[in-house]
Structures are given as structure tokens and as C-alpha cells.
């Protein structure tokens, strides 16, 4: 077994562990901290079902962002929708046989690769061109975009410019899942692509990428508007009533 395969196997085990454990710890913390007061941004749904629907609109359509800025919404939604397709397309590297829906998604996933990079380019352009967004952008904001663009471009490069041995790659990935390390093709573009994806997984739980789980715990979006009908008291606040 080559050193390269071992290094990348170790990298992916570590990245996966950090991603899963880091995210789980964050989610556990969000869930454990009480929201002592009712603070839904109103008008808000008055039932749990209504809240589920509000959340669904936020997650699927980015409803609030649509109200706020059409350009940011267009680029942001394009990027996220494309990313979803690209991730679905990549599931084929982890399955044998490949699920039927994942087979269907393959051709769309290719175009989504371009859409994803286009969306990112639009978002990045805002950071440079709009003075307000330029003012709030930190080095880490630019690096996040650079990371995602580089992942997208290296992936597209392998699809259209310098193909790698995807059969061997799939064997490597399936092997990882069985703790049976297989040889990894040594193409530079592939190694770059995989390294960047591992970096993305590692930074996820310690960066602004936490906006993904954060949305589901945002009291202004997930609370039901029923303060007059039901008494809502956090544990630490209930102690004051005694």
C-alpha cells in the first residue's frame, strides 16, 4: 500500500470524525441552551405545523433573503441548489450498486458544477463591488469562497480537462467505508480536490458554516407565536417563581 493512500485515508477518517463530532457537540449545545423568552419575528405562525412550514420555506426557498436582496438571493440560492445536486451526484462514489435516484441525478450534477461556481462568483463579486459588503468581509469570508470555488473548479477540471481513474477512486472510497484501504490514483487535481474537501469538513463545525444547523435553532424563526395561550418558562427562569 502506498504512503499516499494511507495519508489520504487518515486525512478522511480524521476529517469525518472532526466533522461529525464537532457538529454533534455544537448541535447538542444549541439544543441544551434554553430560549427563556418568546421572540419569534412576527407575523409568525401560531401552530407547530405553521412553524414547520415557515422553516421549510426558509430552507428550500430562502424566503427571508428573497425579501431582502434579490441579487444575493439569486446567487446564494443558485449556489446552494447546485451544491445539493453536486453532492447527490457524488454519492455514487460511496455506493455499490448505485441507487436509482442517484443515477438519474448524474447529468444534472454535471451542469450543477458550473452553476455552483457561477453562484460563488456572483457572491464573491458582491464582496468586492458593493461597498457595504466589502466593509463587512473578513479574510475568512474570502477564504471560504476561495475554498469552495477551488473545490468546484478542481472537480470540473477532472470532468472536462484531466480525467482521473474514477473506478480506482470509487474502490478507494468504498474501501474507506469498510476500513479496507485501496490504492488512490495519484493525479494532482484529484489530490487537490480531496484535500480541499477534507479542509471544508474540518472547518465546518468551527466556522460560519454553522449557519446550516443554526437556522433550525434560531428562536426568531422556530418559535410558535402563542405566548398568551401557553406559559413558556425556561428552567433557570422558573426558579424565580418559587
Amino acid at each position, binding site marked *: 500500500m502506498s504512503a499516499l493512500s494511507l495519508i489520504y485515508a487518515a486525512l478522511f477518517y480524521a476529517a469525518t470524525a472532526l466533522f461529525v463530532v464537532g457538529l454533534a457537540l*455544537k448541535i447538542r*449545545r*444549541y439544543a441544551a*441552551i*434554553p*430560549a*427563556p*423568552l*418568546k*421572540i419569534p*419575528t*412576527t*407575523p*409568525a405562525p*401560531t401552530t407547530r405545523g405553521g412553524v414547520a412550514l415557515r422553516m421549510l420555506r*426558509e430552507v428550500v426557498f430562502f424566503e*427571508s*433573503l428573497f425579501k*431582502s*436582496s434579490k441579487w*444575493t438571493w439569486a446567487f*446564494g440560492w443558485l449556489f446552494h441548489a447546485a451544491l445539493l445536486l453536486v453532492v447527490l451526484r457524488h454519492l455514487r462514489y460511496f455506493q455499490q450498486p448505485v441507487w436509482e435516484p442517484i443515477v438519474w441525478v448524474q447529468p444534472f450534477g454535471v451542469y450543477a458544477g458550473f452553476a455552483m461556481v457561477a453562484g460563488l462568483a456572483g*457572491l464573491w463579486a*458582491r464582496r468586492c463591488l*458593493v*461597498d*457595504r*459588503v466589502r*466593509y*463587512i*468581509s*473578513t*479574510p*475568512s*469570508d474570502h*477564504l471560504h469562497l476561495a475554498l469552495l470555488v477551488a473545490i468546484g473548479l478542481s472537480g470540473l477540471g477532472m470532468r472536462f480537462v484531466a480525467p482521473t481513474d474514477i473506478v480506482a477512486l470509487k474502490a478507494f472510497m468504498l474501501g474507506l467505508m469498510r476500513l479496507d484501504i485501496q490504492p488512490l490514483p495519484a493525479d494532482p487535481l484529484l489530490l487537490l480536490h480531496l484535500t480541499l474537501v477534507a479542509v471544508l469538513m474540518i*472547518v465546518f463545525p*468551527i466556522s*460560519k458554516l*454553522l*449557519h446550516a444547523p*443554526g*437556522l433550525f*435553532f*434560531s*428562536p*426568531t*424563526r422556530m418559535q410558535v*407565536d402563542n*405566548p*398568551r*395561550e*401557553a*406559559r*413558556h*418558562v425556561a428552567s*433557570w*427562569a422558573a426558579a*424565580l*417563581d418559587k
Partner: protein
Amino acid sequence: MAAAKFETPALKPYPVIPLVAEGAMASTRPFVASPQIQGNLGFPGELAEGWEQRAIGKMGELLGRYRSLQVYMDACVHCGACSDKCHYFLGTGDPKNMPVARQDLMRKVYRRYFTFAGKHFPKLVGAVDLTREVLDEWYSYFHQCSECRRCSVFCPYGIDTAEVTMAAREIMDSVGLGQKYSNEIIGKVHRIGNNLGLPGPALENTLEGLEEDVKDDTGVAVRYPMDAKGAEVLLVTPSADFFAEPHVESLIGYGKVFHAAGISWTLSSMASEAGNFGMFIGNYEQLRKIALRIREAALELGVKRIVVGECGHAWRVAYSFWNTLVGIGAGGKDPFAIQLQSQLDGRYRQPMHICELTWDLIQRGALKFDKEKNDDRVITFHDSCNVARASRMGDMPGGQFLIPRQIIQAVANNFHDMAPGTIGEATFCCGGGGGLLTDDLLELRVKGALPRMEALQQVVDRHGVNFMATICAICKAQFTKVLPYYGFDMSMVGGVHQLVSKAIRLGDTH
């Protein structure tokens, strides 16, 4: 003290997002609370050795107490959706008045002390130590936020800068850096019973005077009772209603509504204030302690219903927080809540907004109006931020927008709304909310009113609007002060029940 000179922004025919003007409002800050004012609330009198560690300790405590704060510190992606939404940014161009930048003042400290990236790569993520300079910047810019929640409507994650501002003020109070205006007022509530420091006998005097005025005016003996045990309704209203113009016109209106509907009611000298500045400073214990006065008054007077007068953040506290804080509401299963909830009449919403009460009566045909009495007015309605985005009226989401407008249209003939992006959930704050209604922040208040003034100018030009109705004591006081800066008459602002008062039929004169 002579206020520094500043220029009132020019009203433009259509809204323009200003270019970033760094440092434009850096020197704006309210007066600091004296050690005595701080002491009255149990806060340290001034910054003392080791305040940095105590502030970070407090931040850690709040992060574990409020899910909102913890999630909002982590979730922001700097997308800029909120960057052109704050009236203070639109009015001043100071980039630290963009909600995201205001939050970042705290976020950069949070990152430094509570996150892996900030501890090890501070430059990369913009993390900084909590120094005196940073604290001063907090003091400046967390007192340039009116906690109006407009940003939270537009944020894709619902990040509410008000939550961050409240936490920042709470942290500053806990290390001895408090704001004079808010903390002095909270002291007055505890000492005297209301924000304006009006003692009981003065209130009774005022109410007697009102009864005489109304009698002279209408020939009808409308009562304005104080501490009447056994009354059906306890009305809790902002203390400005007792004497400030135009506020008192609405108080007169509430009394006429109760009179015409034959509902017995009372004010309370103990609970002579609906406002709750505990919210402005983000202090749960103060918020609760101030709300407890209402509970005590209700229990003592034996009332069946609790109704709240025209006041924005007071209605937020009443509607959203009272049930949590002191059990005014329904659904409580603990002895503390049950004690009060078994006394209150479950057939009515508890607490109820005066607009809900009036609208219910109108729908039942219990009130009659001579609408033409308001014909000299062309009316528009300013949605107060805390009513719009932090509360509700009626049974339907959005009832807080419909009900006041329906009342206006039931008592007057000429009504025109302002532009869609400036009302409803997207309404602009008056510029004086959240503990900023003080003359040491006059420049901020005038500039922060710009977006509302532009929207008003538009309906003045198009429809000849000459009256802006609103249901908030702070909005009324702020506009009375600020309208003249933009060339409007200060008497253009008034309450919804001021209009009700003018048109209502009181029945036979006695």
C-alpha cells in the same frame, strides 16, 4: 448642555442607500449612568480593576442562558442582507450601524474568547481582545440600536440584532458601564411607580382635571378612575399618557371607549406605567421585577381583565413576555401562574391591547361614531416596530397591522398607507426606541428618523396627508420632537384613540 450642531439629512424623492461613511457616528454616545443610578439597580457603580474578565465571564453566562445569543454569534455568514435595512445606517451612513457590523462588535470578542478559530487564528476571523477601546465602541454603537428587529425580518437565519444589543448592554451594566437615561428611569419605576416619576397624588389630580375637561367638552361625565377595587378592567398605559401631548388625547379616548361600552375600569397608582425598560437593558431580573408590579396591582384590585394602552415595547413585553415573567395570560400549570389566571376572565385574551378591545366592541356594534368629525384629517398609520415585529393582535398573524387600520377607517373617512416597504413587518422605527429617547442622542434620533420621514413626505405630496397616527408613546414623543427638523408640523402625530376620541358618540348628556 449645548448640543453639538449637526445637519438634518435632506429628504429625497426616493430612498437611496448611502455610501459607507466610516466613523460618521463614532463620537455619538449617551451620557453614562452615575454610580448612584447604577447602585439603585444593583449594578457596580463604575469600571473597576479586572472588568475585562468579569465582562467575559458575563458573556459566557449569557451564552449559556440565551439560545438566541449563542446561535446568532455563530450563524452569521456576512452575506450583507441586513446591511441596508437599519434606519440608523440609512440615516447616518456609518457602517457600524449596519446590523451585521453592530453584531460583529460583539462577535469579534466572542470569537477571541469562545471559539477555536478566534483563539488560535484571531487575525483570520477578525477576533480581538476586549480592551477599553473595544468597550467604548460597544457603548457607542450598542446605544445606536433601537432594538426594532427590522434586520431580523430580512436575515436568512433570523438573526436579531436586538438580542445582541440587549446582551451587550447587560454585559456593560454588569461591569459598571450603564446608560444614564434607561437606568435612571428604571430606578424611578421602582421608587415612584412610573417612568416619569409622577407620584400617586399628582396622577389623581391629572385624572380629575381630565374628567372636568371631557365634561366641559362633551357634556358627558366620563370617569377616569384610579385604584378602583373590583373594577372589571385594569388599564396599564405608558405614563406619558397622563400628561404629555399628544399622548393624553389617547388616554381621553380609552376612557370614552370604556364609558360608551359600559365597562367598569381603573388605572392603578402602583402599576402606573406600562413601559418596561428592563427589556432595553436586556436584564431578565429587572424585566421581571418591573412586570411584577402589574401582577400585584391586578391581584390587589381584583380585576378580571388586563388591558394595555398605546405603547410599542410595552405591548411587546405584555403580549410576548408577561405570561412567562409573571403569569398574566393562560395555560399556566404552576401555583404562581394559577393564582392570577384563576382570577382573570378566561373568555377574554389576557393581556389585551386597547386596540383589540376597541375593535371587538366596534365589531359587536357597541360603539357608534360620527366619522365626519375627523374629516379635517387625512390620516396615515405608522406601524410601531415592537408591535409590528414582536407581538400580535387578534387571532390571526398580522392582526397587529389590520386592527389599528380598521379602527382608523371606522372612525375617519380619509386614510392612506405609506409605501409598502416602509409599513407592516418592514416598518421603520421612529428613531427613538430601545432606550434612545434622550436629548443626548438627538442627532442620532433626527438622522434615524430619515426613512420614515421620506415615506411620510411621499404621502403628504400624493394624498395631502396631515396626520400620522401611531400606537406608541415613544413614537409620539420622538416624532413630536423630530418632525419639525424635517419641516413638518409637530402636531401631525397622534394616537389612534385620539381619532377614536374625536368621533365616538357618548350617548345622552347628563
